[in-house]
Structures are given as structure tokens and as C-alpha cells.
């Protein structure tokens, strides 16, 4: 097993499994966020449910592990691959029509997502966990007013909104390659399924990027 996990395919296997897990997570997260557009009570009830749910409590450390594994292996693979070219690099390469831009820039897209993630956790996760969130009462239940926390952040500063939009776009491009790639790595692909995975992946990427990207802009410009 150790031999397997140290092999090139074994490392990719971990990238793929952790990546697919993150894909499920962002889907759930985007669905929840879209409730912000409906109204304060709906969103706060959903956020309260998520914050107190046992399943979510169990998933939280697993999610953190998923991110850590994904990011660590991304850097291990990227750096070791860089040195596999040898002592001299090509003077001229034409990569445009060989592969997608996303597939060649996964690490940079990942780094943008990572920077966004750090700011994002500092903005919300930290406050929700360690205090500083206003309280509200919905249907007689006392809970965090997460809605106000989110909306006041988005209305305060355009640069924060733009960082969130950039994070969403980077995630969209990351998924453009990542979605089908994860299935290819698991061996669940061939000529026919590649088309299906890339189409599904692009639809997913657009929906996710749009949902995450539109929310800060909506609260800054419309609300």
C-alpha cells in the first residue's frame, strides 16, 4: 500500500479522490449560499441547521483533511514534475493547440483559490467559531445572524467583493479541467465518457462560478 501511494498513479489517485470530495463540498456550499438571495430568515435557518448538524460536524475535519491532502499533493506533483524536464528547457514551445489553458495552470488557479480561501476563512469561519457575530431570533429560536455578517461584509468594500469574484472565476477554470480529469485518473473514462465528463464538468463549473460570483456583486450593487 505504501508503494502504491508513493507511485505516480497513487499520488494522482489521492488528488482525484480529495478533488471529487471538494467538488461535492462546493456544490453543497453554493446551494446554501444561493439562499442568501431569498432572504435573511431562510438563510439564517439554513446556516443554523448546518452549524448544529451532527453530520456536518463529522464532515468538517474530513473536509479540512481533504483540502490539506489535495494541496500538499498538488505541490508535491507540480514541483517534482517541473524537474522532470531535465537540465535544459525548450527554447520554443507551442502549447496552445495541444492542451487547455486550465490544464496547464492548475497550480496557479489552485493558488488563487487558496488565497481566496484564507481570506474567506478569516472573514466568516473564524468569527462564527470564535465569536463576534450578531444574534437574531427566527421563529423563537435564538441563532447567529450570519446573514447580516455576510451582507455587511459584501456591502463594506468593493475589493473584498472583487476577491470573491476572482476566487469564483479561478474555481470555475480549475473545475473546467479538474472534473473530467478526476474521472480519467480513476480510470472511469474512454473516448465516449470523456465527452460526457467534460460536458458535465463545464456545466457544473459555470453554475458554481456564477453562483459564488454573483452573490457579492448583488449585495454591493443591487441591495
Amino acid at each position: 500500500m505504501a508503494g502504491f501511494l508513493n507511485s505516480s498513479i497513487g499520488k494522482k489517485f489521492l488528488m482525484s479522490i480529495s478533488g471529487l470530495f471538494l467538488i461535492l463540498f462546493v456544490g453543497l456550499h453554493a446551494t446554501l449560499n444561493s439562499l442568501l438571495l431569498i432572504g435573511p430568515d431562510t438563510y439564517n435557518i439554513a446556516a443554523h441547521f448546518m452549524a448544529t448538524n451532527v453530520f456536518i460536524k463529522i464532515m468538517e475535519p474530513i473536509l479540512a483533511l481533504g483540502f490539506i491532502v489535495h494541496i500538499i499533493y498538488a505541490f508535491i506533483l507540480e514541483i517534482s514534475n517541473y524537474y522532470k524536464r531535465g537540465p535544459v528547457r525548450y527554447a520554443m514551445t507551442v502549447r496552445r493547440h495541444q492542451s487547455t489553458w486550465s490544464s496547464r495552470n492548475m497550480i496557479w488557479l489552485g493558488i488563487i483559490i487558496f488565497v481566496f480561501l484564507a481570506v474567506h476563512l478569516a472573514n466568516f469561519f473564524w468569527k462564527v467559531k470564535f465569536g463576534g457575530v450578531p444574534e437574531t431570533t427566527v421563529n423563537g429560536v435564538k441563532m447567529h445572524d450570519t446573514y447580516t455578517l455576510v451582507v455587511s461584509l459584501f456591502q463594506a468594500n468593493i475589493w473584498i467583493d472583487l476577491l470573491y469574484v476572482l476566487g469564483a472565476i479561478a474555481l470555475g477554470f480549475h473545475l473546467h479541467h479538474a472534473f473530467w480529469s478526476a474521472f480519467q485518473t480513476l480510470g472511469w473514462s474512454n473516448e465516449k465518457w470523456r465527452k460526457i465528463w467534460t460536458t458535465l464538468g463545464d456545466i457544473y463549473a459555470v453554475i458554481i462560478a456564477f453562483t459564488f460570483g454573483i452573490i457579492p456583486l448583488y449585495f454591493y450593487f443591487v441591495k
Partner: protein
Amino acid sequence: MANKTINIKLRVWRQNGPHDKGHFEEYELNNVPTAASFLEMMDLLNEKLISEGKEPVAFDHDCREGICGACSMYINGRAHGPATGVTTCQLHMRLFKDGETITVEPWRAKAFPVIKDLMVDRSALDEIIKAGGYISVNTGGAPDANTIPIPKDVASRAFDAANCIGCGACVATCKNSSAMLFVAAKVSHLALLPQGQVEAKERVKKMIAKMDELGFGSCTNTGACEVECPKGISIAFIAKLNREYLNANLMP
């Protein structure tokens, strides 16, 4: 039309041996027939260099008909040059413009050290084959053809994979210098056929271990290899290789 010629400038990688630093040298070559293959053009260049008392450019070549895989050259930023589905010997000068500067480099990969000029040592691919890219059979009388029935679609699929000529264009092209397309072709070709299935699990483990050991990179599914492969090997075979490898390691 038949006698059309062009004048070109060449920027060729010259390296005196494995330990030389190497550099680009520029040459002008006039009246190159557009009907010439790229290797014939290189022959013209070498004749010119020899007549000037200079050292000719070393490059690998053998069959000159697109089947041996020897003619490794990275031309204008692409393995085997601007055409798709061909090796350098099958590339023709009609694809280049009069007055054009053509950059010619050796394959660049840690696993393919330069021997001299454009010639690289591709024996790492042979090492991978030696690790498991064969079937073990007892010698003796040749068995009759078709004693093992194989459905036509399976045989054709195996043949698609068997088309690989071991040229190394996939490695040269890949941003990770990965040999996965080559290994995928070899593993799939044997794993698809009943004769190869007996040793399939051991084979894939040994060949991947060798591939990793020899300093090839790891695949990130960019798909660049299949675009430049002269034999049109599909990365669907890489999915099959992943399947075979995961199966061999994770299934009891």
C-alpha cells in the same frame, strides 16, 4: 510546382556530448526543394557543413518511413514539427515558408539525456518494456493461428494500442515529461488480449514502478501527448492504464 524551392534559416541545437553545455547555431540553407522531407533537408545541411569542413549535425533516424520512431526532433516548438500524425521523416518542407527561421531542438526530458546535438538516449523506454512489456511463453512448435479466438473489436482495439512506435514524442511534448501514453499503449495492448491477461497485474505494477524510477513525470491529464503522437494513440488508453493499475493494487 514540382521543382519549387525555398530558402530557410535554421537554428539548430549543437551539443558536443552528454556533458557539454550546448548552444544554438544558426545556418542558412538555400534552394531546399519543398518536396524534400525534413530529414532530407537535414542531409542537405550536413552535406553543406561537410563541404565547408565543419562538423555535421548528429540526429537519429533509421526507417525514414514513419515506423521505427527514431527521428526525434522538436521543430518550431512541437514534437516532429508542425504537422499532426507524422514523424519527422514524414514531415515535408512544403509546410514551411520561404525565408522562415526553423528552430530545431532535441527531445528535452530528464529521462532522455542528450548524446550529441539532436540525438537523445531513449533507452529508458526499452527499460520500461524490459520490466514487463512482454508475455512469457514456452518455446516449441508454433501454435496454429486462431487457436485462441479473439473477437474482432477486441483485436482492433489491441491493435490501436500496438501502433505505438516508441518514438517518445509524448514524453517530449508533455509539460510533466510523463511517459504515460507510451506505457498506456504497451500495457493496454497486452491487457486486452487473452495471452497478455495472465501476467496483467504483475506487468502493470512493474512497468509503472520502472517508469517512476527512471525519472518520468506524473500525468496531469493535459492531453497534449495524444495531439502530438504520430500514431494517434488516444489517452483513453491512459484511463485504461489507471484502471489496470488501481485494479492490480487495490483489488485483492
